[in-house]
């Protein structure tokens, strides 16, 4: 392309790098002596990143398959589902005529598990876990995380959380079925829902372990970014990916403990007979003794995590997309500092908007005034980010790959889903739209599909960094265009359902004349969901095929990127750089500067040249 000068990263690193005497002590490779310590109980951030990614993909497939199954029930209630009985067993009830339907309790269990799995296991662990681990040490120029051991624990706590959640799917009383938010009293009372028995116990246990995983990871990310940046890497020279992971980790550290505290009180109510969340309940023919608790208290604690959580999901995606867009447009990201400040603003505001999930929950309506104001303020930094992404494309020279396409698709999804947030953040409109399909459409587009698009952009872009091979680009583009159109086909019609007042989490709409006349739309959505699911299977096939058979990476820096991860050898050992650590001399977005295609961060400033990162 327009490259005018080539850089030899090895020479630059050797000439200007930073000698930390890492390899004099041989503490790097002792971890990689056996299969078990290299691939299973590895402390190498690159392996841990791959473990997070592959585990996340497993959960992604499970969670998505669940949504296809419950969408079949919603879209095709008149079709027999007895053919999935071999898979689901007693959860498919077959009547005398051989007609099979999904049992309502399992429908709700699937909805609950779909939400829990996607939010926590896939879009938190699979996204932030993967790319924070892969990119933080690489891009700040560190040999590994601050504590590789805690980092390994972080993955294994996540793994354990997954094992417990998976086990709960096979309980005779069923997995938890009270929605991913687990609102009490439903989540406390096994009399009210069979999944609230053993299923809920395992659900809580699993998520507490998950909180531990997030905290171990988060503390590591923050420490690494603050303390282990290489020579010359000041904060304003960090790529936006690192800024995003940094803010994400801080949000996680501050909010997840509150969730754990909320769960702790929930466990007390469930097992010790306390009354933090329940009061004056008559259930199963019996009046409970508990008085004085408030179910709304749980909602406050839950959403104090729950709202930052959606930014924990979307910020890493934003970081990945910013980086991918800049690299592939061959231009600096537009308004680098505005991007950082808008992320900081979003991160800060995310802590003072939680009650916008609770406008209709019985809190004092006066309180809602504050939450409406802060919620709608978030639209401003979000808008700034969107404009900056779009302007990054302006006068660029865009190289189309699956990664850059997904990054552009992310921006489209983030706009579409973000704008409906302006409706829902306004408490007045929430009166009608709360808990309807409008909400389902909103959050699936803005934090589900958009976050996935960011993740896909990241996977396609950094696949060579992880596996030394490329993913199949043609399949990647089919995956992109199909998913873009398919995801809109799934979620766009839901806005109309929501406007018509159709509530979410309904097993069947036949009881209400108001909600009963959308059969064709529901069928359309289900078919689109199946197509989108098939495309994700295609992605998974492409992923595993490419690990072993993909096009081999021949050059260290295949995308012509400025950042440090591409200066390390293709098969980087534990410790990342065989000799010195590269030193940094400039910000990460010198694309197209002074007529050059790109200037890597490790290239010293020319005489009289001004650096943008200071």
């Amino acid at each position, binding site marked *: 392309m327009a490259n005018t000068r080539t850089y030899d990263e090895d020479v630059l690193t050797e000439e200007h790098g930073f000698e930390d005497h890492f390899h004099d002590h041989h503490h790097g490779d002792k971890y990689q002596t056996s299969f078990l310590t290299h691939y299973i109980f590895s402390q190498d951030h690159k392996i841990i990143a791959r473990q997070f990614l592959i585990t996340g993909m497993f959960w992604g497939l499970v969670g998505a398959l669940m949504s296809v199954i419950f969408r079949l029930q919603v879209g095709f209630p008149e079709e027999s589902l007895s053919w999935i009985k071999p898979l689901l067993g007693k959860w498919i009830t077959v009547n005398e005529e051989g007609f099979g339907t999904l049992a309502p309790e399992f429908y709700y269990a699937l909805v609950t598990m779909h939400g829990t799995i996607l939010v926590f296991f896939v879009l938190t662990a699979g996204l932030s876990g993967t790319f924070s681990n892969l990119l933080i040490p690489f891009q700040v120029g560190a040999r590994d995380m601050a504590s590789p051991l805690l980092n390994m624990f972080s993955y294994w706590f996540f793994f354990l959380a997954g094992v417990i959640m998976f086990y709960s799917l096979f309980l005779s009383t069923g997995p938890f079925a009270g929605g991913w938010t687990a609102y009490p009293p439903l989540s406390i009372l096994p009399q009210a829902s069979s999944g609230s028995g053993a299923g809920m116990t395992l659900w809580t246990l699993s998520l507490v372990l998950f909180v531990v995983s997030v905290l171990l990871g988060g503390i590591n990310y923050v420490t690494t970014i603050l303390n282990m940046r290489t020579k010359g890497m000041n904060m304003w020279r960090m790529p936006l990916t690192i800024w995003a992971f940094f803010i994400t980790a801080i949000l996680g550290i501050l909010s997840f403990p509150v969730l754990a505290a909320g769960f702790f009180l929930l466990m007390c109510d469930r097992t010790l007979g306390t009354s933090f969340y329940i009061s004056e309940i008559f259930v199963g023919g019996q009046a409970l003794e508990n008085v004085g608790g408030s179910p709304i208290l749980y909602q406050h604690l839950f959403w104090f995590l729950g709202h930052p959580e959606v930014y924990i999901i979307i910020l890493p995606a934003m970081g990945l997309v910013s980086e991918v867009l800049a690299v592939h447009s061959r231009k600096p990201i537009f308004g680098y500092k505005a991007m950082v400040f808008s992320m900081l603003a979003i991160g800060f505001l995310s802590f003072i908007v939680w009650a916008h999930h609770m406008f209709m929950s019985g809190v004092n*309506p006066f309180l809602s005034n504050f939450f409406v104001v802060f919620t709608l303020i978030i*639209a401003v930094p979000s808008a700034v980010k969107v404009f900056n992404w779009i302007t990054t494309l302006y006068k660029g020279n865009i190289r189309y790959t699956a990664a850059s396409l997904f990054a552009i698709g992310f921006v489209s999804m983030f706009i579409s889903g973000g704008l409906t947030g*302006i409706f829902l953040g306004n408490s007045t409109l929430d009166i009608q739209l709360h808990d309807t399909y409008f909400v389902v459409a909103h959050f699936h587009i803005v934090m589900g599909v958009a976050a996935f698009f960011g993740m896909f952009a990241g996977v396609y872009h950094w696949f060579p960094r992880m596996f030394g091979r490329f993913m199949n680009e043609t399949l990647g583009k089919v995956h992109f265009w199909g998913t873009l159109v398919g995801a809109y086909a799934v979620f766009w019609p839901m806005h109309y359902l929501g406007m018509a007042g159709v509530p979410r989490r309904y097993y069947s709409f036949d009881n209400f004349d108001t909600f009963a006349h959308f059969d064709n739309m529901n069928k359309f959505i289900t078919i689109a969901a199946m197509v989108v699911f098939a495309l994700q299977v295609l992605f998974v096939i492409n992923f595993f095929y490419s690990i072993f058979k993909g096009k081999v990476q021949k050059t260290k820096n295949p995308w012509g990127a400025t950042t440090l991860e591409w200066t390390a050898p293709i098969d980087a050992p534990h410790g990342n750089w065989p000799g010195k650590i590269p030193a940094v001399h400039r910000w990460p977005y010198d694309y197209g500067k002074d007529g050059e295609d790109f200037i890597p961060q490790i290239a010293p400033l020319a005489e009289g040249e001004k650096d943008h990162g200071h």
Partner: protein
Amino acid sequence: MTPLLILICLVLITIVVIQIGKVTELASSIRGEEDTQFETNRWSGILSLVFLVVFLVGCVYSAIYYKNYMLGYGPHASASQHGGSIDFLFDITLFFTGIVFVITHIALFWFAYKYQGRKGRKAEFISHNNKLEVIWTLVPAIVMTLLVISGLDAWNEIMPDVADDEDFIEIEATGVQFNWLLRYPGPDNMLGTRDYKKITGVNPLGQDWTDPKNHDDLQPGEIVLPVGKKVRVRITARDVLHNFYLPHFRVKMDAVPGIPTYFIFTPTKTTEEYRQELSNYAEYQVPSDPDDPNGPQRWETFEYELACAELCGNGHFSMRRVVRIVSEAEYEAWLGQQKSYYLGNIRNGDEDPLKGQVLDLEISQRKTDFTTAVKQALGAPDSVEKVIPLNYVQYETGSSTLTADSQYELDNLGAGTQGECLSAD
């Protein structure tokens, strides 16, 4: 079997696509990577434009096609006084976000097309532009301010509780798995006290029967309300969270065990008026029962509905009650027909703590009965029919002393009634 067939088709398509993927990669390595990249850029640019056009046209077309689902439009107009302000706010939000949506999408995909990588082109080094960034921070800030102000204005109009001196009807809805229990205050306009520990099979709300305010409370199977009168719904739950949701009235509020909530609204259209409005729309001019083409049409069978909008367990989707909005006169007539739940189901049964005692309510009822009987007797033409039955006068066995209840009744009959009867005599 349709889903299974679709699944099989998808699997086959996947296999074909994978093969195509392998072949094109082979082809690209033969053609040279750089040329393939430019070819890819060209295709992707074109597809971006195609997607932009199809997507925007699809959005506009679907919005027109589904215009009857839009809040506040056509058959989906609100049936309550405050509903209009919600619908209006929805429309102005849609207007502003619609503009942003179209502009940003055109810019995004147009740039994606226009600035596709081409041979010999270089990207321009544009790192930031402070003026531009200030503008596009300020514009959304101003629009947001506008939306916040109009939103909060409406919110603080809709949500406050009723003032003491206001004229309103209070009813109560209690969510249970999986039903709504409804309660009207009866003639005294007061809902009686409840205690969840008093709940039994025949006392589903745990009403305290020693509280006289409970004696005239009604538990109808549907909500009937007069048009144009302010209603305060007291919302509560017995077991888990529920949500009192009236889609046509733009009413929604969680029902929380232990913490009663409320929602206040004023219905503006009777069920009959709403049906008439619906009769203008084609989708309502179809038989409501598809198996009975000659039966009533959809608009004729329309009812306002009460639903649950907070996940409450397996039967969450089935908590339906009919809401009927009628004229003031019809409402009064309906109220007159309703029987007190206490008198109809509890009175003198095993669970009645006042079993055997005479209640003030009964006395006043008997007073009315007695006065009616006297008037009827006086008006009767035939002396044989001039009889006043004394149903409730009871003497102690073998004595001419009134029983304690009858004496109490006589003492409390009220001088007015006595005088009325005597003067009529």
